[in-house]
Structure formats: structure tokens, C-alpha cells
């Protein structure tokens, strides 16, 4: 399967990397090339910045430029556009401010390279995506940044392409384990019970949902800071149906839930997977302790791309890495978009 086929079902596609230099920009380039061949009108925005000449941390790492086809729409900033050599027109200035200038939506008048840099806040990214659709983009790509996941929120995108690569670890087994854990987190299942789902979606604040239909509201401070305070609320209650967190659902809270429930199964519900924060733990580890994670809105994982090279460090065999990951993620297309191209020395 090619990456263009993998993303076909989603009009709005988010690209997420598991770390810096996992090959997200290369994946973006491959998608752009395939969509161009299909004659699609494309829109591209980035939560970070893309197409810069060198890495913002290590300027010995050269980054691939982003080639955009004619008529493509791109979110960039006034200052970045000024220094771009491509022939463009400003389709729409916006009000979104970034450290690199004000965001503008530009249209390519001929093939060229432009640094992509859209708005910083996810809500503003949503505005830009909608605007690009209005301006005629048939497909909009929302590129992530470093290890950020916010762009994958179902509010912004209909599916996600995840990039993993050798930078995650010099140990192949660990790289595979971490990729599987990240994929599992990204694809947390939607709450099955429709009635429960509806009740959870109606809540304005975080709460414990009880069997009898009641909701015990939880203060924000308990959810984030004084997490131990949830223990007395849970202890000795047989009737807890689910813990629902509106906002960020973080590992310390899950630890306390497991402690209070002493192994009894507990459902913890977040809005979507981008709102679940697991430090060192994995979904599997929490499940083993009785805490089962679910979401109101699931995120389709369209494809995973693998990059065998850690810049300036180590590399793995491209085919082996791809196969190992594919074995862990049945049903998900796992692609090495450069595999057919010669590997640079």
C-alpha cells in the first residue's frame, strides 16, 4: 500500500511524530507528491514549523524542503513568506500571531518550496483548516511538531499518520515497544456503552459517574494537583461506573485511582486520546492494575511511517524495522516512504 491510499478516507489528515527527527517531514513530502500526482488541491498547515533548512536544536542536521504543487494552499507567516523564493499570492491574511510573525494563507502560483508555519493554538489551527477548505482545498494536512499530539484531535483531523524512527532508541526492541505503546495510546477505543457515552459527553466538569445515574463532580485541583484527594472519594464505593475527565487526564491521577480501587476494574474516560498523558506507563500497564482507558471520540490511525536513521547517531535495517513494527500493529499500514529511494550515505 502507498501512503496516498492509506490517507484516502480522511479529508483532514494530521501528522504526528513520536519525537524530533522521526521522519515526519519526509512523510509529509511523500504524501504531497502522491496527492499532486492525483491532481488534488492540497492545503498544508503546521503546528510547529516545517521546511526550515536546518534543525532548530542541532544545525548540523539538514532538513528536507517541502515542495508544494501549483495551487496548493499553505499556512506560513508574513516574515517567512517574504524570504521564500516561491511564486505565491496571499489568499488570506489572518489574525493569528506566532513567534515567527503573523500567519497568512498563501497560494502557490507555481511549484515551489515555502516554510510551513501555521497558528500555534489548536483552536486556531481548526480555523485555518476550515478556511483552507473554503478556499478550495480538497485535502488539508496538519503537520505536528517534535512529539506534539494536539493536531491529531478529532476536532481538527479525521485521521492521523504517525511517524516513528530510530531516534527513539538505539535498542530496536525498545523502539518497537515504545512505538506500540504510542499507537495504543493514540487509538484508545471509544466508550462502547452508548448511554454511558451520552452521560459522559453531557458533563461540564470532570466527575465520577455512579451506577444510579448520579455524578460526583471533581474539582480541577483534584484532577491535576492534589490527586490523592480522589482516594477517599472512591474508597468503599461499589457503584462507580466511570471516572470522566474533561481536559487533561494524567498518569498521577490514574495511579491514585488504581490505589483506591485495589484492582477492581474502573473505566477512565477522556475526550480524546490527545488529552491522555502517560509518563512512563503504558495503557497496558494501567489495564493490568484495573484502570481501563476509553475516549468519547476515537482517532483513526491511518498509517505509521518508519525511519531507520537517527541523524548523526545510529541506524537500523530499514526492512527489519518496518516489519517488526508492522507485526505489532496488525491492520495498520506500516510504511517506509523512502525505502524505494536510495539511502543517502
Amino acid at each position, binding site marked *: 500500500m502507498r501512503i496516498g491510499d492509506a490517507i484516502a478516507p480522511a479529508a483532514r489528515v494530521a501528522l504526528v511524530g513520536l*519525537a*524530533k527527527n522521526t521522519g515526519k517531514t519526509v512523510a509529509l513530502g511523500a504524501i504531497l507528491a502522491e496527492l499532486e500526482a492525483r491532481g488534488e488541491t492540497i492545503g498544508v498547515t503546521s*503546528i*510547529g*514549523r516545517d521546511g*526550515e533548512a536546518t534543525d*532548530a*536544536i542541532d544545525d548540523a542536521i539538514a532538513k528536507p524542503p517541502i515542495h508544494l504543487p501549483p495551487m496548493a494552499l499553505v499556512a506560513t*507567516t508574513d*516574515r*517567512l513568506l517574504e*524570504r521564500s523564493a516561491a511564486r505565491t499570492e496571499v489568499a488570506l*491574511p*489572518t*489574525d493569528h*500571531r*506566532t*513567534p*515567527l*510573525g*503573523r500567519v497568512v494563507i498563501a497560494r502557490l502560483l507555481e511549484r515551489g518550496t515555502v*516554510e510551513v*508555519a501555521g497558528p*500555534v*493554538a*489548536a*483552536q*486556531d489551527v481548526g480555523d485555518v483548516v476550515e478556511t483552507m477548505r473554503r478556499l478550495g482545498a480538497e485535502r488539508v494536512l496538519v503537520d505536528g*511538531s*517534535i*512529539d*506534539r*499530539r*494536539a493536531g491529531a*484531535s478529532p476536532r481538527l483531523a479525521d485521521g492521523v499518520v504517525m511517524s516513528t524512527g530510530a531516534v527513539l532508541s538505539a535498542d530496536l526492541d525498545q523502539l518497537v515497544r515504545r512505538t506500540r505503546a504510542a499507537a495504543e495510546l493514540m487509538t484508545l477505543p471509544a466508550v462502547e456503552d452508548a448511554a454511558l457515552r451520552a452521560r459522559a459527553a453531557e458533563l461540564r466538569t470532570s466527575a465520577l459517574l455512579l451506577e444510579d445515574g448520579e455524578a460526583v463532580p471533581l474539582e*480541577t*485541583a483534584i484532577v*491535576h*494537583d492534589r490527586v490523592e484527594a480522589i482516594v477517599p472519594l472512591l474508597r468503599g464505593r461499589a457503584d462507580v461506573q466511570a471516572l470522566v475527565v474533561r*481536559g*487533561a*487526564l*494524567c498518569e*498521577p491521577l490514574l495511579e491514585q485511582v488504581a490505589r483506591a480501587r485495589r484492582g477492581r476494574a474502573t473505566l477512565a474516560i477522556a*475526550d480524546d486520546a*490527545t*488529552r491522555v*498523558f502517560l509518563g512512563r506507563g503504558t495503557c497496558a500497564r494501567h489495564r493490568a492494575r484495573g484502570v481501563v482507558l476509553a475516549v468519547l471520540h476515537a482517532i483513526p490511525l491511518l498509517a505509521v511511517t518508519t525511519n531507520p536513521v537517527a541523524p548523526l547517531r545510529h541506524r537500523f535495517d530499514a526492512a527489519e524495522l518496518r516489519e517488526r513494527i508492522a507485526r505489532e500493529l496488525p491492520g495498520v499500514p506500516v510504511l517506509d516512504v523512502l525505502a524505494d529511494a536510495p539511502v543517502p550515505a
Partner: protein
Amino acid sequence: MSSVAQRASLDAVRPYGDHLDDGLVQLSFTLPVDHGPLAREAALALVRDKMGLIKPEIVHAKPLTPGYTYFVLFAQCQHAVDCDRLAAVRTATRAMSEEEVDAFVAERLGRPIVVIGASTGTDTHSVGIDSILNLKGFDGRHGLEAYHWFRAHNLGSQVPNTALLAKAFDVEADAILVSQTVTQQGLHLHNLTELVELVEAEGKRRDLLLVCGGPRITDELAKELGFDAGFSKGTYPNDVAAFIAQELAARERPPVDAAAPEL
């Protein structure tokens, strides 16, 4: 005006020594070689053959301790930089003193600005954030705590992102300031992106200015991380205050098409 006032064009800026575009640079380094002709030749060869500089000249050489020699050299740089192509220069913020910031906030916002800061994650380095927030400030300039129109909360170092966020909601902060010094293995990157992701998850990103700082932070990195600005070495508290004040004022304005003049 002075005779130096002849201005170089900003599209090809070279180091200045004696006259415009001479490209003169000064270097100092120590070689682990005994003071003598061999050490001198090694210093010249290093600069001439390996550093991309031409016409090296030793102006000072001194034995430090047996086996080590300290050098100062002049040499000529052949490269130029095009300032017009540098994206990261924060041109939008007007420089302001403490008094100017206070006057600006009083007039434009008419309410105190609440900021909260910390050095996050496992990072113990607190001097950076202290120098921006604490009364004493940095290099003779007050920190934001001293400003009449700022309410500054400094949580110190090794603060978990979740604790910083909870407190930020508690004090209804306008801006969160994060300091990161340790950059080994990209540790700072994850610390910083995690805060942004938490704020996003809470649906509060539009309501908060996120500012990061530290010796290796730039505006370009800040953009990638999802912050509104990044401040590095040489930052004074009033630079940060000016940015926050002007940015908040700009955000309170109606959308672009109102054609309000830029700051």
C-alpha cells in the same frame, strides 16, 4: 555623527575590525601543546586550514602550565550573513523600560497582568527564572515582581507541569513563563511540549500566553514547541514584560481587517 556611522547594507553583513567589510575576527583558545614554534604553527594551521578563516595572525601567546599554551589570534572571515533572511528576529515588539511598560499596561489594559513562572520537570536551575521574575531582577534591572502593573508568582524549580498549570488556573494567569536549562538528550523539549499539550487538552491555549526561556531557547524553537515566544541569554526582565504587555494588548484588539496600525 561619528566617522563609523557609515552603514553596511543588511543583506551582506561581515565582521567589522578596522574598516567596513574587512571581516576581521578575534579568537582565543588553548592548545594542549608546550609553548614554542610548534604550538604557534599548530594554532595558525588550525585557524587557516580547518576553520574557514584566512590570514591568521597570532597577537598573543602565553604558556599556561607545562604542556598548554593560550593564544589570541586575528583572522579574516570570508562569509557574510543576510539579515533580511533571518526570520526569527522579533521585530513586532517595541523595546520598553520598566516605567514605559507600566505606563503602557495602565493605559492599554487598565488592569494588572498576572504571570506565573517556574523551572519545570527535573530542572533545578532557578537562576534564569528568578532573574526575570524576582524583585532583584537581573544586572541592575528589576524583575516583574517589582512592576506596578504585574502580579508575578514564582514557583521555583523542579515544578511538575501539572502543578504549574493547576496554580496558573488558580491565580488566573495571563501568561505562563517556563525556564529550561538542561538540554541533554532533548529533555527540555519534552518538558516544554508537555506543558503546551496539557494547556491544549484543557482547552485553554487561547487564553494563555506561553513564554519559554533558557540559554538554548530561540523564537524558532519556541514556534516548534507551540509557545508564543522564546527568550535566551541576554534577556532582561523588561524585554519579557514589553513582549507580554504588547502581545496581550494586540490580542484584545479586533481582527486584522480593522486595519489598526502595527505596534
